[in-house]
């Protein structure tokens, strides 16, 4: 390889490094653009279909609020008597939820109220549910963007 080629490669590397550093700095905290923001999903093993919806007050930064979770079996029958554990956090910040939300009521028709949810920062949040009911235990992770 000639001198020209080597300089070209070296300079190319510098340009790439600058671009990568700037790119990292500017976009490290933006949620991935292809994030799946669906509010209804199948659980990992396919045991349940789960839908989440925020309850009053609205889904906004830093208000303590609640969500209603609807759990059905894969073929659409409401799941009663489920035990649901809530977890989550901000994958890009490395921290969990600022509060410990809990299911406080079974509303019937496979619906459950989760109280005590707070998102103190803007950005990408994961909202994870571990569901235990007659059909077995399964997990589902929702992405939320604020």
């Amino acid at each position, binding site marked *: 390889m000639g001198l020209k080629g080597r*300089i070209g490669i070296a*300079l190319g590397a510098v340009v790439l490094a600058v671009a990568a550093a700037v790119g990292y700095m500017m976009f490290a905290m933006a949620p991935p653009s292809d994030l799946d923001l669906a509010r209804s999903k199948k659980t990992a093993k396919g045991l349940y279909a789960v839908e989440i919806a925020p309850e009053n007050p609205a889904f906004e930064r830093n208000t*303590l609020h609640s969500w209603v979770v609807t759990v059905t079996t894969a073929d659409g029958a409401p799941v009663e008597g489920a035990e649901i554990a809530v977890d989550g956090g901000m994958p890009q*910040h490395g921290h969990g939820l600022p509060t410990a939300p809990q299911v406080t009521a079974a509303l019937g028709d496979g619906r459950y109220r989760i109280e005590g949810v707070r998102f103190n920062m803007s*950005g990408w949040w994961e909202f994870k549910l571990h569901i235990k009911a007659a059909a077995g235990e399964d997990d589902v992770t929702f992405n939320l963007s604020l």
Partner: protein
Amino acid sequence: MSRLISASEALRRALASIAVTMLVLAAGCSGDEFTDSEKATIASLSLDRLPPLPADPSNRFADDRLAAAFGATLFFEPRLSGHGDVSCSTCHQVDRQFQDGRPLGRAVGLTDRRTMPLAGVAFSPWQFWDGRKDSLWAQALGPLEDAREHAGNRTAYAHFVTASLKDRYERIFGPLPDLAGVPRNAGPLGTAEEKAAWQAIPEAKRAEIDTVFANIGKSIAAFERSIRHEETRFDRFARAIAAGEAPQGDAALDESERLGLKLFIGRANCVTCHAGPRFSDEHFHNTGVPQPPELPEDSGRAAGIPKALADPFNCLGRYSDAKPEQCGELRFVAKDDPLMVRAFKTPSLRGAVSRPPYMHSGQIATIEDVIEHYSSAPKPPKGESELQPLTLSEREKKALVAFLKTLDTGRPLSN
């Protein structure tokens, strides 16, 4: 034209293309232009976006005007102290943003933490650097019985109110209890003598005295709800940006201030924690602030949570006016988050530049040193810091300081 260009020509072209890249980046960072999402973030920080004060269901006098006026009297009343010489305003000085400019609050003795400013404090669900109180009224009871602060006790306060402020108290809260035979000085947190005297009081009478004590707190809280943030240059800038107009007059930020803002809401990530119109997420973070060697080891929020849960004056306690289901903060507090070790409450940055020193025990003397702290992100003495090193240039550091100054009202502090 020859396709063979010399190595030096290649170098020149490559350098030129880097220079162009840098120029583009520099222009992008100069703050001349904000993207739509940056504009939305800027608007979200404006004082115009401050929501109404959250209700405090644990204090049914929170929005009672008579109680607020009574609370103002109590806040500035030195007789509400063990030796008649300390009021809340000894440390929370009205002409200094309700703080004292010292590294550690000092009255009868020296405390372990820096006095916190009080503007907008009612927006915060948790009080103190470690959030060990879940309401303003429960908070106010702390310094009154702390030997380093007011150094008083609750029977003394009940006697004082009965002797000197009976009418005003009773107009709001109804009849004061009969204090005949109640010792002058008694309380569960005082000296050994005071504790013994407190134990000797019948339980029902103790509850009556505690009610008077709680009502003192509820009045002071009602007053504190009126302490507001004032509009700053940044708010006038943000208002124009939100309206899609060009900021005019003092609302127009200069190049350095705009670069600082751009960094604050962008690469420097300040806005992740210093969010919303108060520039605080009202949560707790370990940011690697050093532990002063002369002070007792401070584990911050990790120690504050059990204290809030055990506080007899919390939202779930017998002196609270709330129904249990209204005590969401307490019921859903995350009890075992390892990140809460040496985590402290995110302070509002409004007015911060003009009230050095900084951090929970005044560890950092100047605003420039605060920026150095964020640039280097030192290892925390304990727990895990949430910061990443930022490696800021000198120009960027100056820009961040310039931006923070736009969050000051610009009026000089009197002493």
